[in-house]
């Protein structure tokens, strides 16, 4: 596998606008309307709505405690909302959604005494429609590791295995929940390449991340949320220009460099430390 630097080295690369991406009217794959999640003492998510268009990558960004994880868990179908509706291809989330979605949780333990191939085989057996195992291993650059025990994998290798598990059913929609947290820069960039390859296959991706460069490189659209609400939505470049002026993503600003997503993020969510 080529683990060389991806597109996001040095200054942030220019991206074409992509909201919605194609010329034809894009189909809505997943639609959330008025999602609310209450916990006994906290309103974690306060009436958010979104549309996930087929073939695009949507980034969900927000500081710790913003309600990002709760939102993505509801979108994944693993946490029932207190109120609001979720529809996949116009239908309530059900067996079809489970068959056609792939999820990479931020932290997932796998069975310890299985090898990489055996783990992929296990999940392969849980779906009706699947990719060939060898193709999944190749897509995630795991061919050389297929005989290795799960517990002997490095952080980056484990994330690639979790991605392989999420891809085994050739999903229409892929959820990536902070997939590169804790990885070194080389492993992160290698992971970005994998995601770019998956996007090129036409897979729709919903990504959460704390890395703004990652969101800029991978996402066609981003949503920034805070205090349980969406506070900004658009293309990464479009949002930067909306808040810092036209050409701000390329022209040096007051700090001697172009504005980036992190500047936007801090402007919208503040600089106070979140507890």
């Amino acid at each position, binding site marked *: 596998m080529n683990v060389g630097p991806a597109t996001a080295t040095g200054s942030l690369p220019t991206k074409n606008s992509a909201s919605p991406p194609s010329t034809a009217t894009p189909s809505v794959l997943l639609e959330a309307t008025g999602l609310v999640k209450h916990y006994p003492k906290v309103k974690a998510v306060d009436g958010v709505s979104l549309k996930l268009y087929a073939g695009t990558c949507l980034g969900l960004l927000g500081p710790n405690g913003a309600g990002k994880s709760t939102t993505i868990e509801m979108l994944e179908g*693993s946490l029932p909302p207190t109120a609001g509706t979720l529809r996949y291809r116009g239908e309530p989330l059900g067996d079809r959604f489970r*068959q056609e979605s792939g*999820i990479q*949780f931020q*932290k*997932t333990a796998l069975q310890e005494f299985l090898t990489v191939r055996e783990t992929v085989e296990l999940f392969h057996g849980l*779906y009706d429609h699947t990719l060939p195992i060898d193709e999944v291993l190749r897509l995630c650059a795991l061919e050389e590791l297929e005989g290795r025990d799960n517990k002997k994998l490095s952080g980056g290798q484990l994330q690639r295995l979790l991605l392989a598990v999420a891809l085994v059913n050739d999903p229409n929609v892929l959820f990536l929940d902070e997939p590169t947290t804790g990885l070194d820069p080389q492993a992160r960039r290698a992971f970005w390449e994998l995601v770019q390859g998956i996007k090129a296959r036409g897979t729709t991706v919903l990504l959460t991340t704390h890395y703004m460069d990652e969101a800029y490189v991978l996402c066609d659209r981003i949503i920034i949320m805070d205090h349980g609400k969406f506070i900004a939505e658009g293309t990464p470049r479009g949002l930067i220009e909306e808040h810092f002026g036209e050409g701000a993503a390329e022209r040096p600003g007051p700090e001697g460099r172009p504005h980036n997503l992190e500047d936007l993020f801090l402007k919208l969510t503040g600089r106070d430390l979140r507890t």
Partner: protein
Amino acid sequence: MSRNIRRFAPLRRLLALLHARNLEFIRDRRTLGWNLLMPFGIVFAFAFIFSGPEKPLFKVGVLTPSGVTLAQAKAAHLHPLLGTRFVDFYTPDNADAAVRKLSRHQVDLLLDLRSTVSDKPVIADTTATTTVVGPLATSVALAPAHYWVNPDSPKGYLTEQLLRLNDRNAVRNTVSGKAISYVDWVLPGILGLNLMFSSVFGAGYVIVRYRKSGYLRRLRATPLTAFEFLSAQVLSRLLLVMTIATLVFVPLTWIVGLHVAGSGLLLFLLASLGALSLISLGLVVAAYVSSEELAGGLLNLCTWPMMLLSGVWYSLEGSSAWLQRIAQALPLTHLLDGARAIMIDGAGIADVWPHLAILAGMVLVFLGVSAVGFKWRVD
């Protein structure tokens, strides 16, 4: 000063860890509560089960007249032997089973009082000092008692001498047969105990660990249902425990001469159903609990009563009725009673079907409860 600090550093680190672990333990209230309750429960159970009068020297089965309980027969002085101290009198479920036990020296004497009274009074007994109620209130002595004894049994011999001292008219019947050794009797219990621990803990702990590590949450994101997941766990554990049980059991038949009087296939079927019920019981705990420590406590709560009351080490025959009723609610009791009936008495499917049916019912109930309340993720 700094040298002293360094000298005590290991102790400081140890105390820091100790403090943190203690806080964790104390704040996990369910586990703490369980750790406090469990010893009380065990001590209380032991004290209750093993308290009472001195252990009797002899065991005598008493076949009482129709509608008459053993207590009524004793109160009415229906037979002089019934007043003898240090003899454990009990009422067998049926005469044939009691005679079989006599032949194996598990009972020292069988006293048959069924023909000693008539329901139709001839002469009212005006000299009776004991107030008798029920059928014996109007009954009268009719015929001598019969008894069965095994001439090969030393304790049978002594019990017969006691009987003859009290009743010279009793009619003697004999049965023959070699004594069943304690090893023959207890081995099914030990094998059952091993099956129980492997089944209950094996299935339960793994699922709690899967849930805690997030693995179950990942599986939940696939089309897998709770029933499919639980069924796979049950079958996997069943395959494992039955393979091990067979590998242990077969050599034992040669090494210690363990004999199976009945069908080996029926024994395997019963053991499989027993293991299934025990695995399902472990799943009931695993379905709801996320803490490994609490799960350990609750699984102990499931296994300890069976270890004490299911007849692993001793028979509960002759113990109080309510204790026996509790024992009948435990899957291991049916597994062991059925296994001993097949192995020792040569019982067939017609004899052990109640045990098979109860175990099958327990499997359905436990699996149903597990599947309905199954939690994929930690709350």
